[in-house]
């Protein structure tokens, strides 16, 4: 080969390698197991799990938590030598529907199951192609209501169930006058509709329903309207960086009543960025996982799982886990449990639909059936209060 040709070939190889690294956006994480598998699992190769996650873009602060949850769950799962190992390949959906779809296309031929996308914009783009064929897609998005017998599964209860528990909480606290502030996108609109539909059931009067454009730089007019309506509590539904703008607007409008946020907003980096521009009582709906001491003695195994996860999370990331990390850890655990002894993506779907209970951390247990692809969870939600000075949350009784 001539010298010039070799030089060109070398340059082409370098450029191709660079393009592959720059554009591929995926990485494979194969945590080293601490022991060899038992004979029962030796015949099965590691379970291959694709993870579609927003690592960059407007939803990246949420994606970081999702990523941590799956990473740690993978380590915890693989650390037990008796289990079938899992291998996770991560793909960055860049906070866009097109990105999520591209990731799905990239992973579908390789993965036995795909976890994520975990935000609505991603799952809405993927569900059309993923619904009728393997691999299984399992997501935390509480809006999709996957059809029976499809290949999509949802672990977080539907938005109506979530709004219902919020209203139960308000009712228990004697709060009757509630205002809503929801993003003007599909998840926000579903939350707004659910609030309108359910308010009467809990003797709640919606004194003001405001929406905001997720790209808006100014939410002050809506916050002023809410302040003028003199609610006893405000229910906010938003996702991503817009949370900061919303909290600043509420703070600026001198709204001092309790503000309840959806779980997608329960994100430490975003709350830290909001700093002290937060209302005095900021609440989230969550689960017992945030207060293991409240877990009854007869649920010791669950309590142990929580404490192990929390301890390892703290050691690995130097922070306490948030709800998003717990939620994605659970979808990894669910898939790993369902796929422990199956050899094809189609059989994995049947294992999920078997009605068996899969153990989790955010919720103690999850189960699905052929007809019901939204998980039945146990137990239900509890509530947390944000402490801005210590940047932590505590259980709100």
């Amino acid at each position: 080969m001539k010298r010039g040709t070799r030089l060109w070939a070398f340059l082409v190889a370098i450029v191709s390698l660079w393009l592959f690294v720059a554009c591929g956006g995926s990485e494979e994480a194969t945590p080293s197991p601490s022991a060899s598998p038992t004979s029962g699992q030796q015949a099965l190769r590691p379970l291959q799990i694709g993870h579609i996650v927003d690592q960059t873009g407007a939803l990246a602060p949420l994606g970081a938590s999702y990523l941590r949850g799956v990473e740690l769950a993978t380590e915890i799962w693989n650390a037990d030598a008796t289990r079938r190992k899992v291998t996770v390949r991560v793909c960055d959906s860049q906070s866009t529907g097109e990105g999520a779809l591209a990731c799905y296309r990239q992973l579908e031929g390789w993965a036995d199951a795909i976890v994520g996308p975990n935000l609505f914009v991603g799952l809405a783009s993927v569900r059309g192609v993923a619904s009728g064929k393997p691999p299984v897609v399992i997501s935390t998005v509480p809006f999709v209501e996957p059809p029976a017998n499809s290949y999509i599964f949802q672990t977080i209860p539907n938005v109506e169930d979530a709004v219902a528990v919020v209203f139960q909480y308000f009712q228990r606290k004697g709060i009757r006058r509630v205002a809503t502030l929801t993003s003007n996108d599909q998840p926000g609109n579903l939350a707004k509709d659910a609030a309108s539909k359910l308010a009467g059931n809990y003797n709640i009067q919606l004194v003001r329903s405001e929406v905001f454009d997720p790209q808006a730089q100014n939410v002050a007019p809506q916050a002023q309207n809410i302040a003028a309506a003199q609610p006893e509590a405000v229910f906010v539904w938003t996702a991503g960086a817009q949370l900061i703008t919303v909290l600043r607007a509420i703070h600026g409008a001198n709204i001092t009543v309790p503000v309840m946020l959806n779980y997608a907003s329960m994100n430490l980096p975003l709350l830290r960025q909001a700093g002290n521009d937060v209302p005095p009582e900021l609440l989230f709906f969550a689960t017992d996982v945030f207060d293991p001491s409240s877990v009854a003695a007869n649920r010791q195994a669950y309590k142990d799982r929580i404490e192990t996860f929390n301890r390892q999370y703290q050691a690995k990331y130097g922070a306490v886990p948030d709800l998003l990390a717990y939620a994605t850890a659970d979808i990894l655990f669910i898939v790993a449990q369902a796929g422990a002894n199956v050899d094809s993506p189609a059989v994995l779907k049947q294992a999920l639909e078997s009605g068996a209970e899969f153990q989790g951390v955010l919720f103690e247990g999850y189960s699905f059936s052929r007809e019901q692809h939204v998980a039945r969870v146990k137990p239900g939600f509890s509530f947390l209060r944000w402490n801005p000075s210590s940047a932590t949350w505590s259980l709100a009784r």
Partner: protein
Amino acid sequence: MSLAQLLNVGWSGIWLGTLYGAIGVGLVLSFRSARLVNLSLGPVLVFGGMLAAWVQTHGGTTAGGVLAASAAGAALSLAQETAMLRRLRGASGSMLLLATLSASIIVAGLIVIFFGRDPVTGEGLVGGSLSLGGWSASWDSIVFVAVVVGASTLLWAFAEASPYGKAVSASGHDPAAAAMLGIDVRLLRSLVMGLIGGLVGLAGGLFLPLAVLDFSIGLRLTLFGFVAGAVFGYESLPGALLGGWLFGLLDAFGTAYVSSVFSEAVAFGALLVLIVAGRRLLLFESILRWT
């Protein structure tokens, strides 16, 4: 509707309108100096804001971040003038528009390269808030409005009262004739582009504590800046600020009192009605003459 509510909603429209007005001032001045609609000003503003946030998170002071934002805005605009616009002298309006659109995409790309895709916010220069009666405003929003208005006024004085400003207008109308009169058109345009970039960069740095910025919103801000500049004829610098405030107020009051679902549609609809009715009453022409 209480007076306090009216004032607070109105103030939110003013500070948001000031952001649009800053871009509008830049657009009008670039049009006067080079007959150019510079679509890259929104992304330059975002670059400034993202740089200010970066400075804050890397141990710099808030004021240092704002100054860096302004300097970076000036440098980006100067680079644009030197590397691109100077070489396109005599090109058609559509070609220049295409060039600035390309520049805006490139600036957005630079934001991703230097600061990433994640949205940012940051500390303000002063913090705290001012309450007068029912009106309440953060000091950072007051500083933002005051500094942008002050800087725009200086630019206005430069453009209207100084011989350089008159030369800017002359070189915009007929660069060849201006050059024959001894005006260094190239130097003057570089100076103007630097000033424009400095203004929008400054606005980006000061806007940081009021909202959340990310690489993708630049062109949207340019669009609203164009609205601000165009309302009063795309010729007047104070008119661009007034246009920004008008649009910001329509947006805020439309959101508060008409519909938060269709807030921008309401604002643009109201603007359309104002333009049509205003033309009949010669309202806009009167304001333009005044400014």
